[in-house]
Each structure stands twice: as structure tokens, then as C-alpha cells.
């Protein structure tokens, strides 16, 4: 063949591969408001694909790309590996070459230490290929095996544009974060049709595993977005807070003052029992526009998110008294632990804003295992080796104080605001515990006055100055001075070495 003919042949194969599925499949896909995979990549990258592996895989079997695009491109100037299902080719299912492409791109990212973004839109494993792909050492399960090996080495981000059923539901679960497009993303181990057959349950796809369900109830989703465009923008924003891999640090940005709005002292109600939205306090102290909340609709009593303080990235864990009084539950313990692990993995310092009356009590939560869930949060805090600053904003009671990175868990600093109330428990519970016998010995008519006097005396003892006198706090601060103090401390604490512990793993409660 002549050079011209060779060139034409290559171009025709490439063109065939780049188009994706059949015109009918592409039309059906776009009619659902979904972008074609190549359009998604154009939006995700600064300037298109740098290189692609396996463009011609499947092209002679009428399976362009074998239903997946694996490539490298740049986001904010940094290289990122992408694994993107093509729903228009055989419903984005995983065949044998699909699996080879996915695992090879994962290994490329791990070896060369660049983040991975998974663009998920797939009907899952291709059942007709199961005997090649299911059982042996080289099989679909390697995708999850790789995700686990890579976890904490480079960031792994999942964008769910469509389904990810059955086994493939572990792809979002094993990523650091998963952003889900409302009404299109779904994940479940068994489909509604399967559930109907197996147990008789009658539910819709949305009820079984819709994006809204996962972002509000199961906790699989980290962010519910309205459109694919929004998911892509959020992924680009998210990665800006992370280094490329665990041995490097997040980038510094020029510092920006907090947004215009009430000062911290005007945001926090002095009455400790009055709820307020802690996100107002966060916005009043961090750099303008830098707060990126994760799992905002799940276990809202604990707020988690990334932000910048004086240009430096910080992960924030804050009790939010606007929801369930800010009390810690099972789900909020899970949420906090996972966020701490994510920050610790990637050299992101942690800021804890404590306003906690404790872990929830009662037989319902005990039966649901609140002790082991709380122990998990405590484990994550105690294992965290990145710089860690804790601030007692209002209440700091009991085990909740410890799980929120209290001084005994060895943060770099435990600070207190001037309205802080550190104690093992509040006045009501404490007086009842300490004086139960005396109260019962008193005549009925005298009890209330006795209890009231003891409560007032106990409440007077709860203040930040006795602990400051004993040097239990590094500093007691006016709320309006907090930001500057944090910036100065983070600058210094970020210089220290991050220790490693020589062991295989702790035995973490779950």
C-alpha cells in the first residue's frame, strides 16, 4: 500500500472509533440530556486529550474503544488519567478488552503518580464475557483490586453520569469522592427487577439507588449535581485542593480575605443551646469563595469540607448545631472518619470546630452500634499525622470532645474561643450524677432550689479560663482573631515532618 493508502486506512479506523456507538444509540443517549463521552472529555480537560491508549480496541468487532476511553489530559495544567465509559457502545459494558484498558490506565496513573478521574456511565459487566472475565487472576475484579492499591497514593475521583450497577457499584464506592448527576446516576447491587424476583419488593430505580438517595441517605454520594457540566466543573475545582500524589503537598494560592458578611463574633450565638449554621462561621474565617463542602446533604450534623486559609488548603470538620443539635450519630462518625482519612492521605492539614454536646444516647443508637462507629471516628483522629488544629467554639463535652480531636488526641494545638464550655458533661446531667443521693434525701419542696443552686455553681466552673490556667489550651481567642491565629499556626505546623508508623494496619473499629 502507498503511504496515502496507509494514512487513509488509519484515519478511517480512528474516525470509526472516535464516533462511538451507532447513530441510534447516540441519539437515544443525547435524548436523555447526556453528553457523548468525547464531549465530556472536552469539557473536563484544559485542551483536549494529550494521549489515548486503546483507541482502536474493539474497532474491528464493531465495538469502538470496547466501550471505554482511557486517556491522559490536563486539568488546571496538571496531568490526570481518565477512564470514561461510552454508554453508546454496548451500553458501556465491560468486556475483556474493556477490562484490560481500564486496569492498564489505573496502573499507569499509580506508576507515574497522577490522579485518576472515572467518568462512569455503564451497565456493568458484560455477562456474555463472564467466562473470560469473572473468575481468574486476570479478571474484572482486578479493577477494584487496583483501586484499593491506589487508594491514598493518588486522588481517585468518580463522576457518575449514569448507572453503575451490581459489581461495578464498587467503582464509586472505592474512589475518594463520588459526584452524582441528579436523576441519571444510579448504583445498586441488585436492580429493582432482580429485587422483585428475589424478594418481591416493588421499588423504582430512583428509590433503590438514585443519586438523591445516595447523597442524602446511604452516603455513597458526596455531591448531588444538577447537570453533567456541573459535575465536571466540580471535579476540576475539587482536584485543585489536592496534590498529585501522597508524597507532595497541595498548591499554595495567593491569600484572599473572607467574604463580606458578619464577623465570626456575630455569627455564633452566645446561648450554648441555640442552634446556628456553622457554615456561616466557616465562611467568615476562610478565604473568600474557597469553601468546598462534601456530603453536604448527608449526616448534616457534622459538616465536612475543603477550604483555604491564607491561601493554604485545609480540611474542616465542624459540628453543625443547626442539624440534630450537632450531636454525633453513626452516619456522622462515618462521614468524619472518611474525610479525615482523605485529608491525611494527601497532606491536607485538618481544622476541627468543636461545638458538641456528645454522641447521641439511647437504646436505639446503642443497638445500631454507636460505640464502634464513634470509636472509628476517634481512630481516624488519633491516626491522623497531618497538622491538626482543634478549636472549641462552644460546647466541648465528653467523648464527643475527644472524637473531635480534643487535646488528649495530640493535635498540634487545642484552642478555645472566649465562649467555650469545656466539661465532661453539662450542668443538668452533672448535678444529677454528682448529687443524686443528696437530692433524694431532701424533702420534695427543697429539691428544686438545691438543684438550681448546684447547676449555677457548676455552670460558673465551665469556662475556658481554668483550663487555660492549667495550660490545657494553647490559647483562648476572641472569635474575630481566630483566622489570623490559624493562618500563623498552619504556616509553622506545615513545616514539620509527617511521621510514619511501622506496622501493617491498626485494627480499626467499623
Amino acid at each position, binding site marked *: 500500500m502507498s503511504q496515502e493508502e496507509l494514512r487513509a486506512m488509519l484515519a478511517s479506523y480512528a474516525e470509526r472509533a472516535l464516533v462511538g456507538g451507532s447513530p441510534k444509540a447516540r441519539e437515544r443517549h443525547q435524548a436523555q440530556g447526556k453528553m457523548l463521552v468525547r464531549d465530556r472529555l472536552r469539557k473536563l480537560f484544559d485542551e483536549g486529550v494529550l494521549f489515548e491508549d486503546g483507541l482502536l480496541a474493539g474497532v474491528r468487532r464493531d465495538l469502538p474503544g470496547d466501550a471505554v476511553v482511557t486517556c491522559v489530559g490536563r486539568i488546571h495544567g496538571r496531568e490526570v488519567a481518565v477512564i470514561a465509559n461510552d454508554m453508546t457502545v454496548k451500553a458501556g459494558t465491560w468486556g475483556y478488552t474493556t477490562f484490560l484498558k481500564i486496569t492498564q490506565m489505573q496502573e499507569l496513573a499509580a506508576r507515574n503518580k497522577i490522579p485518576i478521574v472515572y467518568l462512569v456511565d455503564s451497565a456493568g459487566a458484560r455477562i456474555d464475557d463472564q467466562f473470560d472475565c469473572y473468575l481468574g487472576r486476570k479478571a474484572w475484579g482486578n479493577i477494584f483490586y487496583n483501586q484499593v492499591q491506589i487508594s491514598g497514593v493518588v486522588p481517585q475521583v468518580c463522576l457518575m453520569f449514569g448507572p453503575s450497577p451490581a459489581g461495578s457499584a464498587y467503582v464509586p464506592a472505592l474512589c475518594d469522592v463520588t459526584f452524582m448527576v441528579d436523576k441519571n446516576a444510579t448504583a445498586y447491587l441488585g436492580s429493582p427487577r432482580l429485587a422483585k424476583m428475589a424478594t418481591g419488593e416493588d421499588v423504582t430505580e430512583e428509590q433503590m439507588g438514585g443519586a438523591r438517595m445516595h447523597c442524602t441517605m446511604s452516603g455513597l454520594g458526596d455531591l448531588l449535581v444538577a447537570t453533567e457540566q456541573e459535575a465536571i466543573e466540580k471535579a476540576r475545582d475539587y482536584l485543585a485542593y489536592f496534590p498529585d500524589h501522597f508524597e507532595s503537598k497541595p498548591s499554595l494560592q495567593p491569600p484572599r480575605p473572607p467574604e463580606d458578611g458578619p464577623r465570626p463574633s456575630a455569627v455564633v450565638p452566645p446561648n450554648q443551646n441555640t442552634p446556628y449554621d456553622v457554615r456561616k462561621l466557616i465562611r467568615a474565617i476562610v478565604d473568600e469563595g474557597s469553601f468546598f463542602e462534601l456530603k453536604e446533604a448527608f449526616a448534616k450534623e457534622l459538616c465536612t469540607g475543603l477550604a483555604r486559609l491564607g491561601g493554604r488548603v485545609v480540611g474542616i470538620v465542624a459540628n453543625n448545631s443547626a442539624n440534630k443539635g450537632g450531636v454525633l450519630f453513626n452516619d456522622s462518625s462515618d462521614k468524619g472518619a472518611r474525610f479525615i482519612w482523605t485529608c491525611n492521605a494527601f497532606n491536607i492539614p485538618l481544622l476541627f470546630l468543636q461545638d458538641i454536646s456528645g454522641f447521641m444516647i439511647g437504646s436505639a443508637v446503642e443497638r445500631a452500634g454507636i460505640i464502634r462507629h464513634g470509636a472509628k471516628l476517634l481512630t481516624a483522629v488519633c491516626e491522623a499525622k497531618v497538622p491538626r488544629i482543634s478549636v472549641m467554639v462552644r460546647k466541648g463535652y465528653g467523648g464527643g470532645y475527644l472524637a473531635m480531636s480534643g487535646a488528649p488526641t495530640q493535635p498540634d494545638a487545642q484552642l478555645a474561643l472566649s465562649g467555650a464550655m469545656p466539661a465532661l458533661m*453539662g450542668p443538668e446531667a452533672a448535678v444529677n450524677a454528682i448529687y443524686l443521693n443528696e437530692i433524694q434525701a431532701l424533702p420534695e419542696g427543697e429539691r428544686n432550689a438545691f438543684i438550681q443552686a448546684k447547676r449555677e455553681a457548676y455552670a460558673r466552673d465551665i469556662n475556658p479560663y481554668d483550663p487555660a490556667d492549667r495550660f490545657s489550651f494553647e490559647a483562648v481567642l476572641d472569635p474575630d482573631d481566630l483566622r489570623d491565629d490559624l493562618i500563623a499556626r498552619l504556616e509553622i505546623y506545615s513545616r514539620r515532618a509527617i511521621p510514619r508508623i511501622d506496622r501493617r494496619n491498626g485494627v480499626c473499629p467499623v
Partner: protein
Amino acid sequence: MSYQVLAPMAGSICRIEVAEGDAVKEAAVLLVMESMKMEVPVEATFDGKVAKIHCNVGDLIDQDQLLITLA
């Protein structure tokens, strides 16, 4: 369509801010519970009307107990 407002956590009823028949806007506080020594406001999740109030001030409430029906 009616919607059941359930208790977010165990506690007691501190104040009830609405009456049956009231029209309420999304995010309006319907009642305030007390739990773990914190005030816990319970809000409307959409614009609607208070069809029935199923609790009284001082009642002890379990998590997920029915508090108010909105219509």
C-alpha cells in the same frame, strides 16, 4: 399529596410554632424539640398546609416518630 414530618432524633417537644390549617413555606420552623440539651428545630420541607399535629408540648418522642402531617 400529604407528607409526614418525622422526628430527626429522640427528645421532647419544646414549642409548637404552627396550628392546624396554617399555610407554611419551605424551611419554616414547625416546632422545636429539645434533645441532648440542644434546641432542635424541625422545619417544613416544602410549601404546604399543616393538616394535622400529632404531638403536644412536653411529649417524649422517639426518633422517626410522626410529628406533623403536611398537605
